[in-house]
């Protein structure tokens, strides 16, 4: 039987879908009995979904155009 600390140690592989079958069964058995770890897994998955869905830290077209112009100007200055 694994406890919550054991679960935490394996949680990264579990979230990535990389836990070996036997370990995954033990983790899921623990989840079926532990509300705290269930909430932890559920809310971490929702965190990931929110993070990936929002497209955070986009470099805007305008910002990129400004950088590209400055870089190309400097490059052309040096190569001329």
């Amino acid at each position, binding site marked *: 039987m694994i*406890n*919550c*600390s054991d679960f*935490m*140690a394996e*949680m*990264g*592989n579990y*979230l*990535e879908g990389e836990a070996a079958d036997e370990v995954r069964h033990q983790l899921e058995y623990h989840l079926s009995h*532990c*509300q*705290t*770890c269930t*909430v*932890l897994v*559920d*809310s*971490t998955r*929702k*965190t*990931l*979904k*929110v*993070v*990936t*869905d*929002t*497209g*955070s*830290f*986009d*470099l805007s077209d305008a*910002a*990129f155009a400004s*950088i*590209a112009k*400055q*870089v*190309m100007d*400097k*490059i*052309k200055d040096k*190569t001329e």
Partner: protein
Amino acid sequence: MTEDERALLNFAAQLSADPPGLSGKDIEELAACGFTGQQILETVATAAFAGFFRVLQTELGAVPDFVAPRHFPSDQMKGDAENAHLSAPGERHYEVTTPVDPDRDCVARVQRGDLDGFEDLMNRHRQRIFRTLVGILGDPDEALDAVQDTFLKAFQHLSKFEGRSKFSTWLGSIATNTGIERLRRRRPLESLDESGPDVEGFRPREVRAWTDDPEQSHSRSEIRALVENGVMALPAKYRVVLMLRDIEQLTIEETATALGLGVPAIKSRLLRARLMLRETLAPHFISSGARPRVTGGNL
């Protein structure tokens, strides 16, 4: 390359990628190929030094300013590159060949003097480079300056780029080193290489259930602001890993390569980063029906 040489190369590749995955059996197999204990020791030492220099390069922020000597004739390298699997079929193996680089033609154009090709390269990689640098620096404005530095350094060294790694990997390492140099100048105490317990020392405080669909409870712009503020509040060594894996959506292995760190360190930091971000976001997404609770279970 002979079968024996291939076995030795596989051993060294695995030693670099996953040292705990090796056992005495691997050494016995090399011995069965005819390698002496001294030769195997030299291979281990060479792989260890390569790992040491990789860490040193990351910490010092060094960018090569020389062309690495070529030890194998190019026709021999080509022949070996066609062997996608170096080990015998069914055996555990690590690929040491370089897949076709989607930027190869564009890089060649720039190397022939077509400067417009460089603008194409910048456009293709702008998002990843920006996110890498925001991840390291935690400051979008400074990251914009660092993106410019990165592209200028890349152009400056592009004539020496020989395609031994993918262009994106090479460019990513310039970005990482540029970010680390700036980070060190600005915050001498903050480092991406700092070791120590990641998950072991972390205990979640907020364990109330979240609402079923957090994205329905706030506007997209509100959620984006919450995520960006939460990510920026993470320490650099966690922030950059989460940025590359979860926002830029690199694989674990690609993230490890981009940062010059091992896969186990990336996994450990990633989980810690996700749990810390979860903790920051939790107050905004807790289900209204959840009972007040600060800690629970035996965590």
